[in-house]
């Protein structure tokens, strides 16, 4: 575990250094932020989706709660997101607990559909509560000028350390959980719930704990996203496709249940998507999302274990070479 944490720290620091090397206003720095955010989002999802194998398609609910909580608190009370984001995480945790109790007995597609519906309910709820959320028109983060205290900056480059820190935090939570008591128990519940109960594991409590931690991490990502974009609306932060499915997709494409899965997944998803968008979007409308979709389908069919599993190809080859030499 120490080694995993060390590697995570190295990745985070490397990302910060890369951010410093790039022009802080450049497209590249923006992509770097998006990759780190995607990795954090996928990793947060990986806690329940991977360790407990509960394929949630409603994580946008927690992302949106996180984004709205810190933004609303800034708009209404000028409260700094340094406090607002943790409050959002707590609210998301409460929401996760509330939704987990009725849904945790559901399996596979039924769980996925129930969580998906929950995400949609949150989106519709945010649209309806226009007094607080600004409704469908959305909400702008008030700009106070470059300020670390208010967690806002004119240049995207300044966000790189924040995204890198959040990426490290969420990944470290996953690593510690995965190697610890909770990780063993979540995996046991995933593999055989009845046997887990009979061996003394409180499966309900374990699943609830996993769901709450996952939701809290997701809310933090949502909060920082709002600071980064300065504007949120229900269709963006509670989006089923752009947040919920994307979170699952990043983890699944990279390698579900594995620490390195969402990291590899985020690199792939964001880079391919941005590359296709920037090179092909003028050629033929709709061609870049189409090709992106095709690429994902090919990966999921060819590599159901995720891109991380290519690592074995590399190590196997090195192993063979080593023996020959």
């Amino acid at each position, binding site marked *: 575990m120490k080694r995993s944490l060390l590697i995570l720290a190295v990745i985070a620091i490397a990302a910060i250094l890369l951010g410093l090397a790039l022009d802080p206003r450049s497209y590249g720095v923006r992509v770097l932020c998006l990759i780190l955010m995607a990795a954090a989002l996928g990793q947060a999802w990986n806690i329940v989706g991977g360790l407990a194998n509960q394929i949630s398609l409603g994580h946008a609910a927690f992302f949106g709660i996180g984004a709205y909580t810190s933004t609303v608190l800034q708009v209404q009370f000028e409260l700094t997101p340094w406090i607002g984001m943790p409050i959002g995480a707590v609210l998301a945790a409460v929401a996760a607990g509330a939704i987990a109790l009725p849904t945790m007995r559901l399996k596979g597609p039924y769980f996925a559909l129930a969580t998906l519906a929950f995400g949609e309910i949150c989106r519709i709820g945010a649209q309806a509560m226009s007094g607080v959320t600004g409704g469908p028109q959305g909400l702008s983060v008030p700009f106070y000028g470059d300020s670390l205290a208010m967690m806002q900056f004119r240049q995207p480059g300044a966000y790189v350390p924040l995204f890198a820190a959040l990426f490290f935090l969420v990944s470290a939570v996953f690593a510690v959980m995965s190697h610890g008591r909770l990780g063993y128990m979540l995996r046991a519940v995933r593999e055989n719930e009845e046997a887990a109960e009979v061996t*003394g594991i409180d499966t309900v409590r374990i699943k609830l704990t996993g769901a709450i931690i996952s939701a809290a991490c997701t809310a933090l990502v949502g909060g920082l996203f709002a600071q980064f974009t300065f504007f949120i609306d229900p269709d963006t932060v509670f989006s089923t496709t752009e947040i919920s499915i994307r979170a699952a997709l990043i983890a699944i494409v990279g390698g579900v249940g594995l620490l390195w899965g969402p990291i590899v997944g985020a690199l792939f998803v964001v880079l391919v998507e941005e590359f296709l968008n920037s090179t092909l979007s003028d050629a033929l409308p709709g061609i870049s999302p189409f090709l992106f979709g095709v690429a994902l389908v090919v990966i999921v069919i060819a590599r159901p274990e995720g891109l991380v599993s290519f690592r074995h190809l590399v190590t196997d080859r090195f192993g063979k070479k080593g023996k020959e030499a």
Partner: protein
Amino acid sequence: MSEPLLSVSDVTVRFGGLKALNEVAFTVGEGEVIGLIGPNGAGKTTCFSTLVGLNRPKSGSIRFQGQEMVGSKPHRVARAGMTKTFQNTALFPGMTLYDNVLTAALGHEPLAQARETATRCLRDLHMEEAGDLAVEDMTFPQRALGEVARALATSPKLLLLDEVMAALTPAEMDEVIATILRLRDSHGIAFVVVEHHMKAIMKLSERILVLNFGELIASGTPDEISSNPAVIEAYLGAGHDD
């Protein structure tokens, strides 16, 4: 202690219209080894599942160490000290044997202690070398014994073994019997053992319970059971195919 370790009274379990267990009653004393036999479908596995809380009986009482267990979830029963193994083995796939045993120990103690417990439980069953095996790579007898090791890691007072010797050679069976008796002597664990091999059951058990069509038809020492007309009827009458 006045009350036995486990006392089961008038437990009835229904699956739809079928009475899987009908007013079953028996007791298990501390450190006792009891055999539970009966033809296929007699309700042996149902009996175990009900005892550990996986099935809820329609009526009756299951008192373990003086506490009523009916209505308790299986993890509570396990923490109280009663757990079972699974007949067709239900080790957690995608984990090593060691991690399986460790996970069970984590149910009641912190990681550092659980690691010691896991190592000790594997050693108790002479399975140290199999610890690193993935469940998928284990033979059936290894899995069955692995189940015992995992159950042992919950620090039980009463362990319900469901056909853990099913695929063993006679020599391996003798070894498991010796292990069970040793665990009884060293840890004071009581056992209820379901097994189809009569020789093993006779050798192991102080007392034998016989289930037939969900009813307890006999109970007694191995000698009493082997000469009991009702038992012979149940086995021979149903076609002696064991």
